[in-house]
């Protein structure tokens, strides 16, 4: 059989692809039972996880009575300490008023209510994260598979370059040892037996619940909000044009924090213009 150069290259390329695909498939479907305690395998996949925050729904709920379930759920799931002193505060998902959330988008004659209204803030999991660029130990980086800005606290040396680089204040340094300082403040600490605490001198932030996402679950704040039937938080894949987040962004007017810096934030805020 004559094989010309073109056909040979085609065959070589195809068999290479098959070999690669084959090993991946083998890994995925390799025989083996998942240990009973850990039944989940990754169910959800995305190229870039993103969140859409509908504060209108949240404010409506706040009018009925205070609800901080998303913040509480996050703190409990990740053993986030609460010291009371804002200087030591560890922030994963937190609140700030409009004027601090969108400082460059102030209008002199805007609704007075808007300025005071709280917004939910978390790590923006930027498309172009400045924190990752400055980290000298690669303790923080952008995950290629799903765009989560991850942190490896085993590697963090606490230099705080990332805190200086982040324009959103999403990162916090552990000035004190949480296990020691929380002992008297909350006897329930550490709350989650499946999640570690941190040592003194490392920087931490929201990770879009990577440990849950890797096991096919949505982030804790989203689940807590859904459980209250508020549904102010939506989590999904930004690269899929039919995804829940893309639908919300398409159908609503949304803004992001400090877009002029070119970081490409992936947390979107729906603005409806009703701030009564």
């Amino acid at each position, binding site marked *: 059989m004559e094989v010309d150069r073109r056909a040979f290259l085609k065959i070589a390329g195809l068999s290479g692809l098959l070999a690669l695909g084959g090993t991946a498939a083998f890994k995925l479907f390799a025989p083996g039972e998942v240990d009973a305690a850990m039944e989940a395998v990754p169910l959800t996949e995305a190229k870039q996880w993103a969140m859409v925050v509908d504060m209108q729904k949240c404010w409506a709920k706040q009018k009925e009575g205070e609800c901080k379930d998303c913040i509480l759920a996050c703190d409990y799931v990740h053993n986030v300490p609460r010291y009371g002193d804002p200087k030591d505060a560890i922030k994963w998902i937190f609140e700030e008023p409009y004027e601090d959330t969108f400082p460059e988008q102030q209008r002199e004659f805007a609704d007075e209510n808007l300025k005071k209204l709280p917004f939910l803030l978390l790590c923006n999991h930027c498309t172009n994260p400045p924190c990752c660029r400055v980290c000298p130990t690669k303790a923080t980086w952008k995950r290629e598979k799903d765009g989560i800005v991850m942190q490896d606290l085993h590697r963090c040396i606490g230099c705080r370059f990332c805190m200086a680089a982040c324009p959103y204040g999403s990162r916090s340094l552990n000035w004190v040892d949480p296990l020691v300082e929380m002992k008297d403040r909350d006897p329930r600490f*550490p709350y989650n037996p499946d999640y570690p605490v941190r040592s003194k001198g490392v920087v931490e932030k929201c990770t879009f619940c990577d440990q849950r996402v890797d096991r096919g679950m949505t982030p804790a704040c989203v689940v807590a909000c859904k459980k209250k039937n508020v549904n102010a938080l939506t989590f999904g894949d930004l690269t899929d044009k039919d995804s829940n987040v893309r639908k919300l962004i398409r159908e609503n007017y949304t803004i992001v924090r400090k877009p002029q810096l070119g970081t490409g934030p992936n947390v979107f805020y729906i603005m409806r213009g009703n701030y009564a």
Partner: protein
Amino acid sequence: MYDGGKIIVGLVIGLCLLFSPYFFNAGRAAKAPQPELTPQAKKAKVCVAPTEWIKANHMHLLDTWRNSAVRDGERYYHSANGKIYYESLQTTCLDCHSNKAQFCDQCHNYMDVQPYCWTCHFAPTPKEKSQWKSIEERFLK
């Protein structure tokens, strides 16, 4: 030699003090650690790898796990015995070996190693486990 007597007496006392730990502990070997297995660990019979290998190499396995789980996001370990385990010191290892003091610390103390795993990872107490169930019920179920 000026004050020779005093110097020699001083030297003898000094040497005695220096070697006193050897005299005191002569003939007494320090008790070898005997790590205890919990009933759950005994029932499971197998660890994620053969026991002898784990004894010598558990620290290397944990080092591999922390990199693959945290850095690569690959959280499942395909064990040679065909089982799949979630790669976690706190969730997987300490689930069976929930007696950290009798199982981990005993040997670590004997060998005088202070693994810094335990500055962040902790052995959950039954109280913590039950209180977590109620928190989970309240927010996440």
